[in-house]
C-alpha cells in the first residue's frame, strides 16, 4: 500500500492540528509549522533537551519545520515568487521609492513574526541557527520523517475511551438516552514464511448484547466523539465482560483466517521439507567420518542449519493489534 501526495498532506495536517502545532504558512505544496511540545518530543529526537526543560521548568523553545509535500510544484512556486519579488524590487528601485522591500509573499498568510517573515519564499543567504531556524524537509512516501510521524501517531493513538457526541438535539431534550458500550479492536494479521503478507481487520462487539460488527470502523468514522460522558445520558451496564468480548472477537477472526486459501503455507512447508531433505543428504555423507570430534562438530553444524531453515520457511500467522478501545454508541431508540 502507499499514500498519494494529497493523502500524505491530509494526514500530516491532521497530525499537526491534533497535536496543536502552530501553522505559520500553508500552500497546496507545503506547510511551515512551529511544533507543539508534544510534536517536538515525537519528532525532533532530543530527549536531553526535554529532560532539561522538565528538570529546570524553563520555557521550551520548540523547533520549526517547512514540510514540502510536492517538491516540484513547491520549487516552481518559489521560482515564481523570487521572480516576482526581484521584478518588484527593481521596479521600486527604478521609481526611487524608499519603501520596505520586505513583504510577505503573495500566497502567504499574514505574518505575526516579522523576522521569520523575512525568510519565507526566498532563498536564504546563510543558514540560520538557533530558534529562528526553519528546517526544510521533503515529506514524500518512504521518507524517514513521514515514517516518524506514522510512528508517533501509532504510539499516541493506541487506546481510547470515547462517547458519541449526541449533538445539539440531546442537550435540548429532556428525554433520557442511553449509551451502548462496544469493544473495538483493530487487528493486524501477519501471514509469514520466507515472505509475508498482512491484513487489517477492525472488529467491534457490543458488550450489551454480544453483537459483532466486522466493519466497525465505518460505524465510527461518521460520528463525532468526546472523551467524557455528556449530561442526561446514562451508560447501559455491560452484560459481557471484556474478556468475553475479546474471546468472541478472536474466535470470529480465527474462523475467518482459517477459511482462507492456505496454499501459501503448504507451499512454504514444501519448500521447508525440500530444503531439509537437501541438507540431510549432504550431511549424511559428512557424518560418516571416523573421527568422533569431527563428527560432533558436523552434527552441530547440521542442527544449526536445520534451525535456520525452519526459521526461514516455517509458515506462521501472528495476530497483533494496532489499536483498541471502548466506544459508547448512542443506543438507537
Amino acid at each position: 500500500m502507499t499514500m498519494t501526495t494529497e493523502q500524505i498532506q491530509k494526514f500530516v495536517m491532521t497530525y499537526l492540528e491534533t497535536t496543536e502545532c502552530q501553522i505559520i504558512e500553508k500552500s497546496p505544496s507545503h506547510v511551515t509549522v512551529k511544533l507543539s511540545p508534544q510534536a517536538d518530543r515525537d519528532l525532533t529526537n532530543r530527549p536531553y533537551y526535554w529532560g532539561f526543560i522538565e528538570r529546570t521548568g524553563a520555557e521550551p523553545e520548540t523547533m520549526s519545520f517547512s514540510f514540502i509535500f510536492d517538491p516540484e510544484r513547491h520549487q516552481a512556486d518559489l521560482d515564481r515568487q523570487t521572480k516576482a519579488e526581484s521584478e518588484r524590487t527593481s521596479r521600486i528601485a527604478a521609481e526611487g521609492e524608499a519603501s520596505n522591500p520586505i513583504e510577505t509573499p503573495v500566497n502567504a498568510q499574514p505574518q505575526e513574526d516579522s523576522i521569520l517573515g523575512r525568510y519565507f519564499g526566498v532563498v536564504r543567504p546563510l543558514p540560520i541557527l538557533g530558534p529562528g531556524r526553519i528546517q526544510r524537509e521533503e515529506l514524500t512516501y518512504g521518507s524517514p520523517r513521514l515514517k516518524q510521524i506514522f510512528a508517533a501517531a501509532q504510539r499516541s493513538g493506541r487506546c481510547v475511551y470515547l462517547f458519541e457526541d449526541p449533538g445539539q438535539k440531546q442537550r435540548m431534550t429532556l428525554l433520557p438516552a442511553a449509551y451502548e458500550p462496544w469493544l473495538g479492536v483493530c487487528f493486524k494479521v501477519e501471514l509469514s514464511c520466507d515472505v509475508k503478507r498482512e491484513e487489517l481487520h477492525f472488529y467491534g462487539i457490543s458488550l450489551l448484547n454480544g453483537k459483532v460488527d466486522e466493519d466497525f470502523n465505518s460505524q465510527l468514522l461518521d460520528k463525532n466523539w468526546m472523551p467524557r460522558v455528556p449530561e442526561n445520558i446514562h451508560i447501559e451496564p455491560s452484560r459481557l465482560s471484556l474478556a468475553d468480548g475479546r474471546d468472541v472477537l478472536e474466535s470470529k477472526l480465527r474462523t475467518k483466517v482459517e477459511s482462507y486459501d492456505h496454499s501459501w503455507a503448504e507451499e512454504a512447508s514444501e519448500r521447508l521439507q525440500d530444503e531439509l531433505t537437501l541438507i540431510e543428504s549432504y550431511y549424511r555423507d559428512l557424518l560418516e567420518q571416523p573421527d568422533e570430534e569431527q563428527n560432533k562438530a558436523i552434527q552441530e553444524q547440521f542442527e544449526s542449519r536445520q534451525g535456520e531453515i525452519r526459521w526461514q520457511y516455517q509458515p506462521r500467522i501472528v495476530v497483533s493489534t494496532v489499536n483498541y478501545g471502548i466506544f459508547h454508541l448512542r443506543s438507537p431508540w
Partner: protein
Amino acid sequence: MCPHPPRPAVNSTSPIPVSVEFDHSWFEDLETRLNKGGPWDDWKLFNLAAQAETASLVTSFDEMLCLQHLQNVTPLPHQTETARKVLFEMRGRAILADEVGLGKTIEAGMILKEYFLRGLVRKVLILVPASLVLQWVRELNQKFGIPAVAQKKEYSWQNDIVVASMDTAKRNPHKDILINGEYDMVIVDEAHKLKNKKTTNYQFMLQLRKKYCLLLTATPVQNDLGELFNLINLLKPGQLGGSNDFSANFVVDKRIPKNEGQLKGELAKVMIRNRRGDGELDFTKRIVRNVHVELSDEEKKLYDGVTSFVRDQYQAAGGNLSSMLSLITLQREVCSSRDAVFVTLVNLSKKLPLDSPLRERIWGLVDIIKTIQTNSKAEKTMEIIQGMNEKVIIFTEYRATQEYLMKYFRDRNMTAVPYRGGMNRGKKDWMMDLFRGRTQVMIATEAGGEGINLQFCHQMINFDLPWNPMRVEQRIGRIHRLGQEHDVMIYNLSTQGTIEEHILNLLHEKINMFEMVIGQLDVILERFEKKESLEKSIYKILLESQDDQEIASRVDSLGRSIHSIKNELDNEELSVTDNGSDFKQLLGG
C-alpha cells in the same frame, strides 16, 4: 515481529497447515487503563494510527515495496530484476556475482530494504573489507534510508544494522558475540575471500546463525570450481550434492566443468551473474593514446643521475630488496616531476649520518634539480588539454607533482581542482562538485577507494603510471563505468628513454590491459602473482639490470609470461566452448 516461528505444531486438530497465534498484550493494557481510569488517547490520533498502518501494510506476498521507498537512487532494470529474483525465487539466500561496476551494492541494498519494510528482518550484519565499511554505511543511509552504523567498539554490536570488517568480526571478543547472536540477514561483500573452506573466514561464516544471506563477489570462480562449491555450501549446503557427488557429477578438471546444462541449472538457483554486454549493459569503448615526451637535457641528466645512484645503492646493499623501497620510489618519482624527487631526496639525506659520503652525492642530484627550468611532461599535458577543450581528469601518484601541476596551471590561467585520499568526505564531495560545475581540470592522486564517480567526464591523462596494473584499472574505472555515454579517451604520458617507457610497453603492448575485458585483469594477476607480485618483479628487473637493453629484454619476458597466462585462460574458455557451452556463460546463468 516474531523472530522465530513457534516450534512445529504438534496440534493435529488444526484444520489448516499453519498455526495461528494471538498476541494478548493489548488486553492487559486496556484493563490496566480501565482500572486506573486512563490515560486515554485522542480519537484523531487513533484514526491516524489506523491510517498509517493501512498505508504501510504489506498487502501481497510478492510485490516489491522497496521501489517506492527509494529516494536517492534509481535502480537499473537489471538491478531490480536481480532483487526480485533473490526475494521471490531464491528466498533470500543468494550469491550476487555481477561483474565489476554493475551495482551489486545497489542490489543488496534493495533486497535488504524490502525485507526491512516487510518486517522480516531486524538484526543485520554486513561484513566487508575494512576500506569499504564507511562507504557501505553511507550508501545504505543515503540511498536506502537504512539506519546502518559502522562497528567501532564492542558495544556497536548492539545496534540492529551493523557494518563491520570481516577481519574484526572473526576475532575475539567480537567473534563470540556474533556467533552467540543470530542475524535475520548477513551480507558479505568481496565474498571470494570465503572460497577456501580451511580459512578462519570460512569457519566463522559457517558458525554464524543467519536467516537470509547474500554473498557478493565479482569473481565467484578464480582458479577452481571447488571455490564455487564452497561458497554455495555457506548458503545452501547440498545444492550441488555432497563434495564427492560434486566432483563426480560436475568436474572434469579443476577448471573444466562437465554436465554444464545441469550445473548451470543448479547454479541458477543460488547465483545471479549479470555481465557487461548483456542487453543494455554495454560499455562504451576505451581509446588509448600513448604520448611520448622528450626530456630536456637537464631532465635527462637528472634521470640518469638518479638511476645510477639507485643502482649503485642496490648493489652496495647486496641485492636486498626490502631496504630498497625508498630508492625505488625515487626511481619512479623521477619520471613524474622534479618536485617529487626533490622531497624524497631531502628526506633521504636527513636520515643519513652527517659525515656520510652519500650526502654529497644526494646534494649533487639536488643541484641538478635546481638547474631544471622546464617540465616537458607538464608542457605536453597543457598542450593536450588545450587541444581537447573538454573536461579532463589527470592522475598522478605523487602529492608533490599534484601541487606542482596546480601551480603550473594556475600560472597559465587555468584553474584545476585537486583531489586526494587525505581529504575528508565533505571536501571530496565539494571538489567533485567544483569539477562538475566550474573547472575543466581535476588533478587526482587517489583513484581507489570510493565515491569518485565521474561519468560526466570521458577524458583522462595518466601523468605517470602506477606499476600495479590494478591501480591503473581503478583510475580508468572512475570514468569508465555505468552511465558513461561517450567512448573514454585515455592518454598515457611516457618519457622517452626511461623506465616509464618499458612499463607502458609492458602494460599496453604486452598485456594490452587498457582494452582488456573488465574483470579479466584480476584473474590474470591472481594467477601470475602466485609466484611474486608484478610490482616486485618490475623492481627487481629495474635494480638488477645493467643497462637498458637488459631491462627491455626482461620486461619482454615478463610480458610473455603474463601473456601466456592470458592465453591459458582464453583456451580454457575455448575448450569449454568446444563442448558446446562456455564456462563464462555458465556463470552467467
